[in-house]
């Protein structure tokens, strides 16, 4: 499991750990070094080009281009099976490129962050709400630019996205999926009248 193995990753003494403290770099047309890009995907839909309508104040997500013939790299036992990740129930962030269809995990492309949103389908997601989360993810990555690429930073980003999802839930924009396999209302039990305008329905 990703969460368990990344906890053990911190204790190994492999020599290539020293090359992992890279900085997150912003993509720009002038830089010749590797550009920072993000790939967002859910388990049910493929990420398409960003044809979403831009809402005022929201940054558009800049997904990485699709790559063909992606192979899983650096995942074997000789690399210790380590990867930089932050995993919670709804948000999984990996510092790698993961192919959307085949789920090949390319660990060598550490300049990209992949976000997997709600793989257990606890909420009902629409295109619009997904795009909101992706643009928030984009904002966070731009905000954290320059920070060291460690699991601590990825966990901070993941926690911020989880708080954002909770905010969306309280505003009523997403709701619990009642056909989920595990229905335990992990972001709070449903309450009556929380997002109403304060007027309770009359009791007859």
């Amino acid at each position, binding site marked *: 499991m990703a969460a368990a193995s990344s906890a053990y990753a911190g204790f190994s003494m492999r020599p290539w750990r020293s090359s992992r403290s890279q900085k997150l770099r912003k993509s720009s047309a002038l830089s010749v070094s590797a550009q920072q890009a993000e790939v967002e995907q859910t388990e049910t839909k493929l990420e398409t080009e960003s044809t979403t309508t831009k809402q005022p104040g929201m940054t558009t997500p800049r997904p990485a281009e699709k790559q063909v013939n992606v192979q899983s790299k650096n995942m074997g036992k000789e690399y210790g099976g380590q990867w930089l990740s932050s995993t919670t129930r709804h948000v999984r962030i990996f510092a790698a490129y993961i192919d959307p269809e085949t789920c090949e995990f390319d660990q060598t492309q550490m300049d990209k962050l992949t976000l997997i949103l709600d793989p257990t389908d606890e909420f009902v997601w629409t295109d619009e709400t997904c795009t909101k989360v992706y643009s928030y993810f984009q904002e966070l990555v731009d905000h954290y630019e320059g920070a060291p690429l460690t699991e*601590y930073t990825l966990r901070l980003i993941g*926690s911020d996205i989880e708080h954002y999802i909770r905010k969306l839930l309280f505003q009523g924009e997403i709701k619990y999926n009642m056909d989920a396999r595990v229905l335990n209302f992990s972001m709070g039990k449903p309450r009556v009248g929380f997002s109403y305008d304060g007027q309770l329905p009359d009791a007859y």
Partner: protein
Amino acid sequence: MQGRLSAWLVKHAIIHRSLGFDYQGIETLQIKPEDWHSIAVILYVYGYNYLRSQCAYDVAPGGLLASVYHLTRIEYGVDQPEEVCIKVFASRRNPRIPSVFWVWKSVDFQERESYDMLGISYDNHPRLKRILMPESWIGWPLRKDYISPNFYEIQDAH
């Protein structure tokens, strides 16, 4: 009332301060960080061959950090071994204390834990790195002014 070890140290003109006795009757001394590595060797030669435990704590918010060493003399046929407790206070800005790894080996992991939790860096420790928290953690968790980051899974997970 001064303990036996304190009287002996005074006789040999070693600068220390006696902090009295704790509830079990173990005398407690305070040693300065710059003298600590030489006094550790002196105590080892005196006979304290077993470091029972090393711990550290934060004295006060904005105050000093303390590193505590509990030493005993292990020998045959003794019912009540001699014990002493040494406290070394380090400033919060740049907490550096000489490591006594080369005197008592068992202090290895314990000093790493004090480093991990409070940020006291031990000079000449062979592998001083975090032992309990993940390697990339920022901050010293057991300090009194540490604020835990707002990680989702810690606060709200069901």
